[in-house]
């Protein structure tokens, strides 16, 4: 195989229909950019889940009278509940938060807002904060053990609250993957079409090549490489897009929630690694599309 020959043919091929090449590259880039966004969403979901799985608690809120009477969980109802929880193998640890402590945390959380001034310590329940040893079955076990017990008002699983956040992230993931799919179809059709046009404009060359006994490699490789180059350039553009997007708005968007530790921030390394996957994905998909097109539509 003569590489100078192939290089020359590919370059003339790409130059010959520049508008088509540009359209092909841009569509591929957008498609891959969306794939990258989706991958980052997945990565964030995973990271968030792992942060929360060891931090999330089940809160057992105590009734008004118990909360008011017992400030350090030394009276029978509270100690009884605490002991029950601590005896469960699914529970890692139990911590008591008194009305006063709850009030202080509340003030901290809503500092400067009018709700902070309205709240009284008496209106907040004391809670038993349960860290689970078993993340899957633990919450349900606590709920069952505490249901109908004297002194228990409600059981709140924090994961029900955080679930909404996960739903949102999963939504981002689904939307970007769907858009990526639609764009990918457009990109595939464009690549396929370009290969066909390219083969048509080069039919005289291909005719001569066949006549003088060039092998399939020589007749097809320029078209394949043309497609793969498109895929790779598209992936590079997509990567540049992702990295710029990180600095231009993802950082701002996540700044608030990330600083509170609700969502881990998306690091440059994450983006670079994701971009790294896009390269082979782009090259492979473009190459396969080109190959299939040649097989199906083009006599070379």
């Amino acid at each position, binding site marked *: 195989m003569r590489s100078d020959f192939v290089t020359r043919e590919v370059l003339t091929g790409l130059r010959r229909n520049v508008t088509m090449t540009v359209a092909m590259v841009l569509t591929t880039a957008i498609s891959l950019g969306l794939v990258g966004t989706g991958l980052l969403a997945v990565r964030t979901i995973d990271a968030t889940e792992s942060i929360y799985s060891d931090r999330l608690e089940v809160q057992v809120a105590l009734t008004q009278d118990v909360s008011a009477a017992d400030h350090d969980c030394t009276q029978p109802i509270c100690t009884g509940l605490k002991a029950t929880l601590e005896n469960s193998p699914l529970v890692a640890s139990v911590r008591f938060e008194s009305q006063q402590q709850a009030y202080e945390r509340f003030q901290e959380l809503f500092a400067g807002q009018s709700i902070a001034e309205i709240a009284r310590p008496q209106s907040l329940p004391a809670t038993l904060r349960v860290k689970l040893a078993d993340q899957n079955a633990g919450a349900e076990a606590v709920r069952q053990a505490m249901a109908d017990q004297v002194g228990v008002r409600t059981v709140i699983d924090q994961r029900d609250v955080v679930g909404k956040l996960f739903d949102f992230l999963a939504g981002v993931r689904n939307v970007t993957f769907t858009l990526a799919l639609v764009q990918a179809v457009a990109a595939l059709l464009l690549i396929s079409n370009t290969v066909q046009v390219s083969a048509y404009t080069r039919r005289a060359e291909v005719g001569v090549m066949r006549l003088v*006994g*060039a*092998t399939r490699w020589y007749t097809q490789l320029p078209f394949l490489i043309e497609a793969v180059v498109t895929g790779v350039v598209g992936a590079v553009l997509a990567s540049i897009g992702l990295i710029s997007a990180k600095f231009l708005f993802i950082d701002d968007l996540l700044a608030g929630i990330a600083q509170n530790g609700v969502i881990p921030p998306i690091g440059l390394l994450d983006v670079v690694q994701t971009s790294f996957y896009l390269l082979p994905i782009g090259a492979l998909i473009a190459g396969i599309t080109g190959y299939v097109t040649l097989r199906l539509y083009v006599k070379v």
Partner: protein
Amino acid sequence: MIRLERVTKMYKTSTRPALDRVSVSIDKGEFVFLIGPSGSGKSTFLRLLLREDVPTRGSIFVADLDVAKLPRRRVPRLRQRIGCVFQDFRLLPNKTVGANVAFALEVIGKSGPTIRKVVPEVLQLVGLEGKADRMPHELSGGEQQRVAIARAFVNRPLVLLADEPTGNLDPDISQDIMLLLERINRTGTTVLMATHDHSIVDSMRRRVVELDLGQVVRDESRGVYGVGR
């Protein structure tokens, strides 16, 4: 060198065969005219030798290769042993004369030094020395056909097939082309030329295979065009 055994070619869209039980044997180094009126099957004959198409029945051998049974991936090897020229030259209009000839070698993987050595030689052989940098449209029809012959011959094929190579040329230019084909034939290359140009066939006095409605109606060793008609 070339052998056809009871070769029949039926095109799907046609009711009569384009070739009908054709048996012909051509030795190495022969110069053979394939004649007959338009539609008699001459181009089909050449296309089958090149494996552009496969016969409906019968077998074809070119230089020990069983052409009809050749697996697809071996076809390039067959075609590298056969040079080919046509009435319409089929040069690449955006390449120079030299690049057109070099292209035929590049695409079968010949090295740069070989190409730079061989291309000027073959251009000299066909009488186009000094015209390597011209574009095809700057040349006369006869000169363009010489480029096509140079391209067909540059890889030193065993066989040169020519399908009405003088069909677009004036008679005296045609004579020059025939002299060139004779010269190529003298290097030991088997030449098979399809034509319906009477004067050329009559003046050359070479072997004549005549087709009519796809059948061989005459095979004469030093024939002329018109006899028996």
